């Protein structure tokens, strides 16, 4: 199982804040999961944005980050705190 969360503009665009996906061997890296979600089409194209940021288990990471069953993953636009 992979717990995926979406924040801010992505959450609004997608109309979902989190979901649980059954683990697939094909999710070797975070980008594999992202491509799986992009393939849903429509609003999911937002995950193809250049400024997309992501985190694995609450730590910022790159799209080449390896994934494991049970991970918490998050996708969000560039952060704007401070």
């Amino acid at each position, binding site marked *: 199982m992979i717990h995926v969360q979406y*924040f801010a503009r992505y959450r609004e665009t997608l109309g979902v804040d989190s979901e649980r996906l059954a683990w697939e061997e094909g999710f070797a890296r975070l980008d594999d999961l992202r491509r799986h979600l992009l393939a849903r089409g429509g609003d999911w194209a937002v995950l193809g944005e250049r400024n997309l940021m992501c985190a694995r288990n609450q730590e910022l990471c790159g799209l080449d980050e390896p994934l494991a069953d049970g991970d918490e993953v998050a996708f969000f636009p560039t952060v704007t705190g401070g």
Partner: protein
Amino acid sequence: MGIRVQVGTFEPGRELDALHAANAGVGAVVGFVGYVRDFNEGREVGGMFLEHYPGMTEKALAKIADEAARRWPLLRVEVLHRIGRLEPGEPIVFVGTASAHRQAAFDACAFIMDYLKIRAPFWKKEDTGEGPRWVEGRDSDQEAARRW
């Protein structure tokens, strides 16, 4: 080291004083306060909502503060960031550093703010005359963090 993520407001003066209290070895205290402006990128701003990633936010801030404490000889570090609804003129963020001498406190404070801007999971949604809009990240913020 103190990390706080809170809805309620805070008093910058009190935060600054607390960095010096109970430690006579502190010779320098530097504080940064960020406020909500009433104008941004060509539009009047009537207020904003700050969204964050509960759980990760605290970890991300602690990691940045830890890194600052590793690079500079700090005696105290405080990072306080507000979430939820904020009005123009209200304080959003406080970063305070205390050290024996000024340069470490100055540099560590700037470092923490620069990294907070690009690594801490907060997102601002502003209310403008033309409706709400998400604030977009700036390339200049990425540039600012590169100097460290």
